[in-house]
């Protein structure tokens, strides 16, 4: 498997970036952090829109930048697709001409087939003759994504593509992004500060803080690392990859399986074996020492305590293993000591709520 190797150092006086990162060549890598964490700057360095004084970038075995050998491929020579926060469509061109803009500049007759697929995938077929100024924010962003994808790029870079949209427009685009996620065979690097987008899209999670790399790794692993602020957050959660096992239509429920067990969820009307992401908030998970025999909670699973941290306030965070799956539970420190929870103990978790992400 080829990798993306990125190492950048730059200094803008009040802001500096210093990261050394390896990303997988498949799936969505999300660069996550607060504003000022350097996530957009890092993405711009990958695109060559920012020229880091110290930098090394290798994608699919090809070097795009190597400051030691004075190699710097200008942006327009990099086989990438880039989606900006604002759609950045050319206002003097129709939607179709916008989509053709990049296509005309590559020598690749695969382009048109790819473009038609992309137009279908993003549902913009009815907009082709329109001018960008007549589109809604969500439509503009879908066109921008299609314009980037039409080039058949080796990597897709997305800089907070949803940040400038209101909640409704976000919900309109997220399904398209999820579809892309399932159908694209190229790596995507996606910048966001939204935990919802992380949960929905990330395969690999990269956390940045003040221009430094805080953590990078597979989503569930990184989400449940107790040494990171994410696990302490009120919104702390873990995302599981599950697949539909059966529908219990009488109760309006669906059973899904994962690597280590199964869960009952409210009915999801999709075919058996469909892959899904399920998000479980740490605050919705409680721990019991013995298997509860009489409980209204459906999802009770045996688990192994793998790690514990105690916060300064009333809260403790427990990391658990269910089969191969990691899970976080937020409980009180008082419960922690009353139950005498220790690393390595076998317990049961009760999951009060789940949310389905796609």
């Amino acid at each position, binding site marked *: 498997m080829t990798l993306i190797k990125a190492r950048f150092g730059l200094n803008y006086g009040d802001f500096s970036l210093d990261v050394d990162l390896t990303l997988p060549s498949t799936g969505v890598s999300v660069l996550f952090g607060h504003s000022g964490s350097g996530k957009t700057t890092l993405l711009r360095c990958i695109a060559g829109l920012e020229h880091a004084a110290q930098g090394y970038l290798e994608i699919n075995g090809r070097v795009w930048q190597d400051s030691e050998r004075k190699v710097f491929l200008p*942006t*327009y020579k990099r086989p990438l697709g*880039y989606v900006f926060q604002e759609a950045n469509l050319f206002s003097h061109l129709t939607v179709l001409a916008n989509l053709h803009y990049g296509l005309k500049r590559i020598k690749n007759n695969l382009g048109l087939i790819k473009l038609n697929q992309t137009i279908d995938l993003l549902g913009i077929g009815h907009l082709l003759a329109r001018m960008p100024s007549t589109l809604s924010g969500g439509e503009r962003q879908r066109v921008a994504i299609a314009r980037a994808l039409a080039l058949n790029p080796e990597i897709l870079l997305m800089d907070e593509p949803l940040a400038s949209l209101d909640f409704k427009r976000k919900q309109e685009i997220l399904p398209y992004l999820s579809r892309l996620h399932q159908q694209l065979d190229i790596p995507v690097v996606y910048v966001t500060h939204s935990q919802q987008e992380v949960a929905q899209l990330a395969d690999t999670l990269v956390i940045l803080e003040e221009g430094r790399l805080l953590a990078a790794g597979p989503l569930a692993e990184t989400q449940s690392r107790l040494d990171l602020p994410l696990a302490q957050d009120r919104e702390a959660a873990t995302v599981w990859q599950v697949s539909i096992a059966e529908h219990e239509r009488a109760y309006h429920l669906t059973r899904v399986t994962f690597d280590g067990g199964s869960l009952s969820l409210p009915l999801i009307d999709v075919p058996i074996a469909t892959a899904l992401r399920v998000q479980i908030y740490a605050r919705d998970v409680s721990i019991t020492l013995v298997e509860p025999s009489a409980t209204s909670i459906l999802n009770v699973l045996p688990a192994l305590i793998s790690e514990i941290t105690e916060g300064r306030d009333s809260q403790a965070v427990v990391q658990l293993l269910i089969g191969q799956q990691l899970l976080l539970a937020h409980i009180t420190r008082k419960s922690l000591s009353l139950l005498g929870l220790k690393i390595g103990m076998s317990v049961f978790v009760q999951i009060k709520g789940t949310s389905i992400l796609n």
Partner: protein
Amino acid sequence: MLSSEDFDTLLLTFKVASIATTIMLLVGTPLAWWLSRTRSVWKGPINAIVALPLVLPPTVLGFYLLVLMGPTGIIGKLTNWLGLGTLPFTFYGLVVGSVLYSLPFVVQPLQAAFAMIGKQSLEAAATLRASPLDSFFSVVLPLAKPGFITAAILGFTHTVGEFGLVLMIGGNIPNKTRVVSVQIYNHVEALEYTDAHWLAGCLLLFSFTVLLVLYTQIKSPTMAQPFK
């Protein structure tokens, strides 16, 4: 009615203005682009120099050009050395003077238009495989079109309307440097008010018509109407 002499001055005026406008667009486009993008310390001084003709009496500009382009001036020596003779009181001297005199009217609308394009569109073009030169022609020029129309119209009309500068470096030579504004002055001096009326009326109608087109037909208000 217009005499054939008057007609010749009109023709000459439009010839000077057309050539000067073409040169101003060719020189002004890269200059305005540079001014709209640079963070160089030279931006301020260059901007000030380009804008000088806006505030300077045309006679002052004309006086310096006369001195510089004369046989003992730097430019005069250069043109002599090149075998071109000296420029004052020639058609091309008038063109050079017109270019300098009207340049701010071309550079400023272009600069405003370029500044409005912002770097985002250029970055988008770069991510879509367009080289900087390619994106200048495929993105910047079309987006700045209203600015170009404004620049061309203002540069042209302003050149048509010059007088003081023409008198200083062009003089009053029929078919070489005698432009409309000078001819009107000649008529008035000779108390030929009817002839002066005809020519003045032509200029008034012409100027009003192009400005009317400029202010009513071009949609993008901030770019097209820098002097509103």
